């Protein structure tokens, strides 16, 4: 990849008479970053690709044995891994759908003549800037069955959230919705403010109902930006680790990142975990690809 940068510059570009040539400066500015990322992101991945074909255990001094595709075969045939993926998928759907409904809903409310709109928007955006792990921890107190303010406010008595296997994943998703709806709101607001006002005026002249206006004007025009928010949040929810790991230790909340963490750093099945990491990686790259295509599409507008 770095070689691509070495090619000659466009002859039309103005190069200074003194000092370094533009070509040198360009390479000096770009190549270190590319090299840094290759050394600290790509090289480790190549390193772990090698280990994914072995039975290496980082906790034992025994040398790694080459086992071919055995790790991949076993992982893909392991029903427990598939259940981790199923939990992750459920989590992604619940939390992303929740974030879109709440985030887009709040954006619609904010897209009016609201006094102190700027201040309220900034306050609403605060949760997403905070540390998931540290704030997530505090939700343990909020969810507490005996003295948590959530049960008290909602009058739920001593309802179990985090220690209830059926509820724990939803509790984690609710916290995630709280943190990240503001992100969907932020992007939706940008989309809404970009809708040309004359379209609404024209609709009003035609006596179009608000239902019609929303589905035929607002939604189609906001959709591309909303889509960016959805893909980005899907990607992040798929990778989720901090919140679920800190809030509960239920088997029903063991999303794929937590499984991977336990396999690598608690069970020390290093070789196997490298293989699982690769399976996860390929899925993430696929979503990233879609995401970047959308980013470029919106950028062109």
């Amino acid at each position, binding site marked *: 990849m770095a070689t691509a940068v070495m090619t000659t510059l466009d002859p039309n570009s103005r190069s200074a008479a003194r000092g370094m040539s533009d070509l040198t400066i360009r390479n000096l500015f770009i190549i270190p970053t590319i090299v840094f*990322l290759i050394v600290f992101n790509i090289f480790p991945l190549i390193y772990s690709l090698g280990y994914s074909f072995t039975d290496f255990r*980082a906790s034992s001094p025994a040398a790694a044995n080459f086992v071919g595709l055995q790790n991949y075969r076993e992982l893909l045939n392991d029903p427990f891994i598939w259940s981790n993926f199923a939990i992750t998928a459920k989590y992604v759907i619940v939390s992303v759908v929740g974030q879109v409904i709440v985030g887009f809903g709040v954006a619609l409310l904010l897209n009016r003549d609201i006094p102190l709109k700027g201040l309220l928007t900034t306050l609403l955006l605060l949760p997403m800037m905070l540390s998931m792990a*540290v704030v997530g921890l505090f939700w343990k107190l909020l969810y507490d069955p005996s003295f948590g303010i959530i049960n008290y406010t909602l009058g739920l008595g001593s309802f179990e959230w985090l220690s209830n296997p059926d509820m724990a994943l939803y509790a984690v998703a609710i916290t995630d919705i*709280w943190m990240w709806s503001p992100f969907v709101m932020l992007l939706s607001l940008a989309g809404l403010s970009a809708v040309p006002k004359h379209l609404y005026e024209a609709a009003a002249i035609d006596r179009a109902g608000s239902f019609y206006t929303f589905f035929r004007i607002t939604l189609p025009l906001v959709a591309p930006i909303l889509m960016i928010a959805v893909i980005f949040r899907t990607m992040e929810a798929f990778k989720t680790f901090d919140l679920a790991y800190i809030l509960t230790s239920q088997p029903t909340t063991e999303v794929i990142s937590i499984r991977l963490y336990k396999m690598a750093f608690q069970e020390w099945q290093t070789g196997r975990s490298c293989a699982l990491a690769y399976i996860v990686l390929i899925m993430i790259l696929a979503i990233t690809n879609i995401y*970047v295509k959308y980013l470029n599409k919106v950028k062109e507008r």
Partner: protein
Amino acid sequence: MAAVTTSTERSLNKLAIVGVLIITMIFLAPIYWIASTAFKPRNLATTIPPTVVFQPEISPFVKLFTKRSQLRTAPTPEQYAAAPWWERLVFDGGEKVVRSGRGEVQWSGYPSRFMNSLIVAITSTVLAVGMGTFTAYGFSRFKVKGEQDLLFFILSTRMLPPVVVAIPMFLMYRVVGLNDTHWGLIILYTAFNLSFSVWLMKGFMDEIPKEYEEAALVDGYTRMEAFFKIVLPEAATGIAATAVFCFITAWNEYAFALIMTNRRAQTAPPFIPSQVGSGLPDWTVIAAGTFLFLLPVAIFTFLLRNHLLRGMSFGAIRK
């Protein structure tokens, strides 16, 4: 929206205002609860019904910074009278401050973790923004073959799940002795933030008119001089916004820190949850630690408010 004229529109607008206010209160409630718990006496932190009105005190912060142990017997009146005011707060809570043989107060683990967070976040931010600014300028001003592919490659490194990257990094760090060191985390956070910094800075660089440098070049500046004297000052706002974003990301990061550090270089995010442990945690102390940790980010969020959209969308959406 169309001009608000009809009475239905007006009442709808009022409804929206009420709705927004209620939602804002719900969204801020957890943050308010953290802040208020940080100033509560311990016995009021977990009451039913929840305590909303109370006499604020700073004993949680004293306890946050000191190493304490349970009092077996109540302090004698002389001991109590001789103790400084902050130590009395700890006595009042049924605990005593642990002192060394020479009588020096022992610190808790919190201050060193907070310092580690500062060291790691600031250093990695300087590196990521520094490199990112140069690279962004390179991409913005010069023709680069396969520019789109390179930019995609740079962005994709950001999307990797932390645990996936952490496994090989942990093994490699073990070989070179970087586990549980500041530099180990700094390198990881720099790599993580670098892609973000390149993307965001490229947007800011693209907005600076090329003519500024061209004019400087005509005046006899070298390209380097033009970059440092013309472009960098113009990009100052962008650099500051990018730096704050990178700082917040590194400051908040949990998974890498959990895996790569355990004591010497441990940052606050893995440390604070480890204090909950088993039994009945003292939520006032946890709230105090959380409050101090969140404070810088809350301040930065207000400073950044006009750049949030741009930053969160990797520079793709500008207002």
